[in-house]
């Protein structure tokens, strides 16, 4: 079809599409793909012994694995200096993402199915955090969680109890709750989009045929929304992997640091840029794998859905 169209059209009509796509393609090649290779070249390059500046090595044949093995040894070796932060990243991100799902699913479901004439208002309120700066939302919590802040005052119930919790001094719970607070909005929208599309008639049929609420959810709603759930988990978990500022603002203690903090602490330190490159590549690999799996699953599941 397309080829026949092109033949009918005047010459030059085929050139127009490459010409339109070219600037953006070149931009991404120069400023997205090539810089990722620079990270690799720096990780497998050397360090200037005097200036402590990284010396990138472009040819893969000349790569020097010293920095890579250094990082690797400190993750799996006998002195696992970096391991706690990596384990913490996995644990925090998992808990925070599942916590987000526990909040986001009911909210998205309620908005899609039961909001009625409040739907527009509700959607606006759910989108609102997108227009509020992330840092402002974190700043709000920094204020509330001060030792003399409103949270402790609310907990002391007007002076009945004496509450002096240092929420901001390296508590894992604060960091995980902060991550949840920060990223829930990103999860609600794709979930809402998926649930809003679910055919209401099918859900009503299930209930008419005698399924309880739980049965309807387990056998109809949940399977219908599964792909939306996967997407929402991805868009929430991946950015969390690179997050270091939530941690810095709400804890600031090495006892809660994650892989993002490792990157942030080493990237600006002379002589440690290679390390930062290694951690960046870990994040790259960890985020690409679920993406590939997702793309594959949607390809095979595309027929099933329609």
């Amino acid at each position, binding site marked *: 079809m397309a080829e026949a169209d092109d033949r009918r059209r005047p010459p030059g009509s085929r050139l127009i599409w490459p010409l339109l796509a070219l600037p*953006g393609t070149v*931009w991404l090649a120069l400023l997205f793909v090539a810089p*990722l290779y620079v990270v690799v070249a720096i990780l497998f390059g050397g360090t200037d012994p005097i200036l402590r500046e*990284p010396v990138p090595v472009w040819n893969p044949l000349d790569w020097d694995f010293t920095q890579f093995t250094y990082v690797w040894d400190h993750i799996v070796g006998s002195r696992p200096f970096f391991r706690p932060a990596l384990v913490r990243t996995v644990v925090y991100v998992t808990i925070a993402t599942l916590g987000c799902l526990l909040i986001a699913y009911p909210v998205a479901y309620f908005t899609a199915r039961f909001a009625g004439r409040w739907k527009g208002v509700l959607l606006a309120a759910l989108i609102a955090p997108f227009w509020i*700066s992330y*840092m402002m939302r974190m700043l709000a919590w*920094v204020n509330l969680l001060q030792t003399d802040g409103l949270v402790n005052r609310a907990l002391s119930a007007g002076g009945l109890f004496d509450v002096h919790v240092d929420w901001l001094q390296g508590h894992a719970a604060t960091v995980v709750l902060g991550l949840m607070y920060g990223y829930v909005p990103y999860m609600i929208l794709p979930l809402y989009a998926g649930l809003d599309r679910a055919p209401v008639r099918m859900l009503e049929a299930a*209930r008419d045929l005698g399924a309880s609420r739980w049965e309807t959810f387990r056998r109809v709603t949940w399977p219908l929304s599964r792909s939306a759930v996967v997407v929402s988990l991805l868009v929430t978990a991946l950015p969390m992997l690179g997050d270091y500022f939530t941690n810095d603002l709400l804890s600031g203690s090495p006892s809660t640091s994650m892989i993002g903090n490792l990157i942030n602490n080493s990237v600006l330190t002379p002589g440690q840029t290679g390390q930062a490159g290694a951690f960046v590549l870990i*994040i790259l690999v960890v985020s690409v794998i679920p993406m590939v799996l997702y793309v594959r699953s949607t390809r095979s599941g595309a027929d099933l859905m329609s």
Partner: protein
Amino acid sequence: MTNPVAWYRNPWRKPWVLGAVTVGYLLWSLLPVAVAVLFSFNAGRSRVTWQGFSMRWYYGDPLRSVWHDSSLHTALTHTLWLGVLATVITIPLGVAMALGLDRWRGRVPAGANLAVLMSFVLPEILIAVSLLFVATVLVSPLELGTSGQVAGLVTFQLSYPVVIVRARLLTIGRDYEEAAVDLGASPFGAVWRVLLKMLLPAIFASAVLVFADVIDDFIIVRYLSGDSTTEPVSVKVYNTARAAPTPALNALTTLLLVASLLAVSLGFLAFRVLTRGEKNAAGLDVFTGEA
């Protein structure tokens, strides 16, 4: 009805629990920000004790208000400036790319598609660190400061217009454009005068999204900032939030919030005007990433 078991079993009962969770979530989500906005009007310098209403932290205080402290209002103007610059570059680049990738077949466009997808989902810190390395380790035209920040932001945001416009192209189809060509328009004319007009709502929506996302950006603008004059609001908040700031910081973020809400409301109004008469353009679809 009085039997609680029967009530529980009734599949048509009102979803009280879901409603309560939703209301609870909204309170949890928005109240802290409301408190932060409230304390930007505090008369004293406390961020936890209310000492009366004043505009002190906006312009009243001769030293530390947003109006008088140059480091604060520079952060605000720089943030908005970055938002404008990045949006103005990203949108034409992205729209052209979306149009081109929609029709161009072959290896290069396939690779470009993959790059767009990757830049869409990969954590921002990857782009930030790699561009920081390019700017600091290599001898390259990329420099720290405003130009570097804009380059990084455009790279990160380019996928938004591409994804949104391509989704819209899918629903438009080829018919209008082919009709235009049949009626004597050049291929370029068909794109310029027909397709682009029909894409206007999608272009607008992506411009609003990009602008709002850029003024909220932190990772890229922090790593690629040159000196303190190129530090936007988010970096300012990060640097001072834990170091006993005054409510002027709340005032600064409140002003940014106002700017963001203004941009979004204007964008939404314009979007409604542009999609007037279209049945399926419910409006919010584009913003939820659906369209």
